């Protein structure tokens, strides 16, 4: 791997880390909503 690729690698890693963080937050919200929905349906 050539040194000139280093900034591009870091940029892509940052971009993927941000998207993964957003997806994890959305996943947590989804699981919370699914739990509430299942409790509502079961009542």
């Amino acid at each position, binding site marked *: 791997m050539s040194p000139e690729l280093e900034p591009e*690698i870091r940029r892509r890693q940052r971009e993927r880390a941000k*998207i993964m963080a957003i997806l994890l937050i959305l996943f947590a919200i*989804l699981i919370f909503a699914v739990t*509430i*929905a*299942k409790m509502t*349906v079961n009542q």
Partner: protein
Amino acid sequence: MTSLPISQDAASLPATSRDLFALTKPRVISLVVFTGLCGLLAAPVYVHPVLGFTAILCIALGAGAAGALNMWYEADLDAKMKRTASRPLPAGRMDRQTALHFGVGLSFFSVILMDLAANHLAAAILAVSILFYVLVYTVWLKRRTAQNIVIGGAAGAFPPLIGWAAATGHVSTLPMLLFAIIFLWTPPHFWALSLFVRTDYANAGVPMLPVVAGVESTRRHILVYTLPMIAAAVAPWVLGLAGWIYGAVAVGLSAAFLILALFVAGNRATEPKQMAPEKRLFTFSIVYLFGLFAAVVVDKWVLA
């Protein structure tokens, strides 16, 4: 499967999120999501919006996972075809291991989430659909037989079954007919496409029907397979599982499909530029499927 000549620099870079998204075949997902949603909405039960949304999300993620695994396995084929050469793997923008990990991870995630949000049956059918598309269609059939899409078409037919199962927890006659419609629709749809891109398939060594049996035979096959497809399309109305709205749409769209298939059967052109009837049938076949499935839902909501 052979290894690809990928640019070392490009392949060593982490894949971009745009390329990971492209791995999921977003255009295919739109049809999968739509038919899955129609299966869910046509079910005769109340579905909590959050659970319904999650079930459709799982169907989309499962389809995306299957698409990614398909691209992982077929990277060498994709590189040989104009239509697919710019995909992330053949274009050398991603290493194959990333695609494999992404596809397997997404598969497990979608099935587990479906099990948590809906039920075991929906999760099991989702798992079977992913495995069927990857193992039966991609790995086993596609490179071996001209009947690849006849049997492999079942993979794309599962979404309405999954949607219905997610809503009700069981499977009955109507979702089985919705499955049959897509299953029988797939051969005429893909054969129409493969007629005008057959050089691509021939160059890649994929034994699609026009490559193996010729153009004329494929046109006859399209017409012959259209008949059981139409029978399946009108069956929900004939059997009393859908009302007159669906019946009218199914009869009208099927008549148009049959006329276009007759034009294809009557065409004698061998050059793609002269295959206007085939291109028309291919485009209309997408409208046909959207129309039928939309009619199932409208019929149920209006006449219920």
